[in-house]
Every structure is written in C-alpha cells, then in structure tokens.
C-alpha cells in the first residue's frame, strides 16, 4: 500500500472536521498514520482470519472456564 501524502492526510482530516495547526503537525500526522497502516498490513498469523475480534472479556463467565 503506498504511503499517504501530506495533502491526502489533510483532505482526510478535513472530511472529519479536523485541521492541523501547522505544517509540522501535518507532517507528523502523516508519518504516524503511514506507520500504523504499514505495520498493521504486515501483521500476519495463521489464525488471523478465523479469530473473532471480541473487545470485552465477559468476566463473570470467564471464571468458570479458566
């Protein structure tokens, strides 16, 4: 996946009502989102496609299973 350019990042931010304060802001935001995108894309695991993405561990039920 190609990196986003600062102008693409500015456009995406603008679409959700966010405005960087200056060019330094925009540059760093661009580095940050490109880093996340690249790193997430590179994550691999044999079970990644079958694992459900639960976000809450149901604590009371857990106790009887673990």
């Amino acid at each position, binding site marked *: 996946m190609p990196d986003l350019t600062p102008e693409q990042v500015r456009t995406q931010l603008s679409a959700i009502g966010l405005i960087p304060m200056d060019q330094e802001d925009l540059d760093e935001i661009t*580095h*940050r989102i490109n880093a*996340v995108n690249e790193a997430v894309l590179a994550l691999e695991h044999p079970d990644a496609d079958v694992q459900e993405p639960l976000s809450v561990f149901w604590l009371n039920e857990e106790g009887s299973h673990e």
Partner: protein
Amino acid sequence: MNSADELTLRPAIELSALLTSGELSPVELTQAFINRAKRYARLNAYITVDEEGALRQAAKAEDEIKRGMIRGPIHGLPVAVKDQFDAKGLRTTVGSNIIDYIAHEDATAVGRLREAGAVILGKLNLSEFALGGNVTHPFGVPHNPWDETRQAGQSSSGSGIAVAASLCAAALGGDTAGSIRGPSAWCGITGLRPTWGRVSRNGAWPMAWFMDAIGPMTKTVADAAMIFQAIAGHDPKDPNTSSRPLTPFEPERGLEGMRVGVVRESIDNGMATGDVVHGVEEALEVLRGLGATVLDETLPLFEHGGLISNGLADSEAANIHRKFLRERPQDYDFASRRRLMAASLVPAAAYVKLSRFRMLMRRDVMAALGRVDLLVTPAQAEGAPKLPTSTGMTSKEAVMRQFFGLRAHRGPFNLSGVPAMALPIGFTPADPEGSHDGLPMSLQVIGRPFDENRIFQLGHAYQEVTNWHEHRPALTDS
C-alpha cells in the same frame, strides 16, 4: 529532617500499624506529607494539594481511632490520587488545559479509599488526558526524583513521583497501556495493574474503555495489597466490574512449588538493555533461591504488543477526543494533538484486524499462564530517559521504532486483561556525570485473571529477602 518527616519515608503498611494502634497521629502524619509536598513542589507531582480538607479528614480519623472506631488498615493513612479520577470537592483537570471542574462525587475507587478511612491529600499530575507522550505539561513537567533531568514515566507520572519521593503514603494510578507499570518502574516503586474489571472505572476519565484499569502505586508489595483490597470489587456504576469475591492477601514465606515463566522475547535480541537484562537475571536467581522453578516461556506476538495496544487504545481515544480536537486543537500539547489526529484516520479495517490480533495475543498469554503460575518480563526496557523536548517522530520509521516499541513490554498484558505488577529489582550503574547514583530497574510480574494474590506472593517473598524497595531518592532542598 525531623521525626515526622522520617516517618514519611516508611512503607504504608508500617504507618498503618502505627496509626491504627494509636501510636501515630493522623494529623501529624498528614501535615508531614503536606510539608514534603510543598518542599519538593519542583518535582511537579501534585496538581492540587488539599491541605485544609486533608487535615480535616485526618482530625476526623484521629478522633475515630481514639474512640476505637477503626475502619480498617488504611484508616488515617494519607494517600493521593491521579487527577484522572474525581474526588468530591476537588478540581479535576486530567492534566489538560481543556477540562477544569470541581467534582460533585468521588470516583468509586476514591470513595472506597475514603470509606476505609484514608485521608485524601490531593490530586496528582499526569500526562495530558492520561495519553502519555506529551512534551509540554499544563501543570509543570513531572521530574523523576532519582534524576530530575529525567522522565518519571507516563501517564501516572505524579503518582510515581509522589510515592518515590514520599509525598504521600500511597497513590492511585491508572493504566491503559502501561501507565501504572511504566512510572512505577522508572520511579523505583511497586505498581499493580489489576485484572481488567477488578476495580471500578466509575468517575475516571477514559483513555481507552476496554483497557483502562485503576490500581495502587506504593513503596512495597504489602502496601499495594492493602490498597488493592480497599478499592477492588463489584460496582453497579461500572457494569464491567467483576462480582467475584476478594480474598485478602495472606503472605507466605518462600515460593516453593511456584512455576515462573520468563518471556524470552522480552529480553532476547536487544529487547532490553544489557543492564536491565542483567538485573532481571539477578532477580530470577533470587526467585530460584526462594524455591521457584524458573522456566523459559514464549509469546510469539510479543514484539507486536506496542503496535496492537497503541493502535487500539489510540483509536478509542481519538473517538473520545473528537469534539475537543475539532473545537480546541490549540489547547492540546502538540504531541497529543498529532497523535490523536493521526489515530482519527485509522481505517476501520485496521481497527478490526488489531482487535483480532488482540485476541490472538490473549490466547497466547493465557496458554502460557496455563503452563506456569506467573510470567515475568522487564517492566521497562531501559532506565528512565532524559526529559524530551520534541516527539522525535520525524519519519514513519521513527514512529515504528519509538511509538510502537515504547510500550512493547507492557502491551501484551493490558491487551489480555490480566493483572501485572512492576516490582523494583535494582539500579543501573551510576551516571559518570554524577546526575544520579543509578536509575531504578523493574520486573513485570504477570498473573492469571483475578490471581493478583499470587503476584503479591511472589513480590512479597522477593521483598522479604531484598532491599531495593527500601532505597529512597536523595532529594536536596534547593
């Protein structure tokens, strides 16, 4: 140093014995902590010191204790709480330029401290909105008491400083992705992140809903167990708290029969400095001497803990902050603003993938904790670094190295919702330039869900035969 001041250097458990037996006045002790908080105000540990309110609470505690109405072990004990948690009648700022109000109610954890008779000294400094990573601080840059040119850790920085510098007997911190364990490690104290759902988050400002945890930051493991017992348990105001009963921690001698797994990925291949690896190895020798069996363990996804943890937590935080980011971006620290704006652009597909990897990480952690009783890693990969003047995120590669790497040692366990504790295990070599005599190093001890007492057992046994927890930073009055 007068005798009252010397008392502030003692562990909370010792102060508890003196207070509840009537040998020590809560008022005298509270005044001693307030005096120290003022004397070392340059460390920027506190945002609010409630001198009048604390002395009033202490006088009430003194009266109750004199009349034999002892509420429990922390009756009359002067404690302080991270300014992420509401305390009735006191200002809440969350370390920001944006939030500023007087709380009408206590956060549940704070209220439970009060009900148990603790004296609330005030509110402690923190990284802006408990995010960590900010460079500027509205209430002053927190300074590490072991070397004031260095960081105290993020985000419960004030809690770490206040306990290490004896500006309170114990503190509450909040840990989303390491914010109790990190500052505890760099400040040389004990800090427990409880099982997610053990301690109510009611009245706490959220950083990331499904990882936020509140816990004790203290001088010793026994102190941490005592504070944990006071704050943990089901709360109807936080439906995700567990209703499991709490079992009081009963110290046992030795670790005979305990199986401790060292997560190899946390120390191999340069994942921690040589000093820290050496410190961990020495700590493991102590554990073996106490009867524990030390085994190698593996978490194949370990190196991705920082990415998964930060990717998820920041996406939630960005949603929490969306309104303020739109309306008051100028009021954020520049590093926080850039981080939250970037996190606002994380694609939904990436968030879902990270959520799946979170579960895979948890599966690995739970499998390892099925083979051993406890896991250990370094709590921090290095001693506290110098205070930053910039984010250093000048390239995509720098973000990957610094931002994802920063929380790599703690991320796997907050992702998994399991309890984890930072335990002081010694000091790095002294700085040749003389700014410090060595920086604290720390072991992270990880347990099964709701098995905090086993973590306490290991930590307490370790502290019975070592004295790292008895070291105090040499603060000057100037």
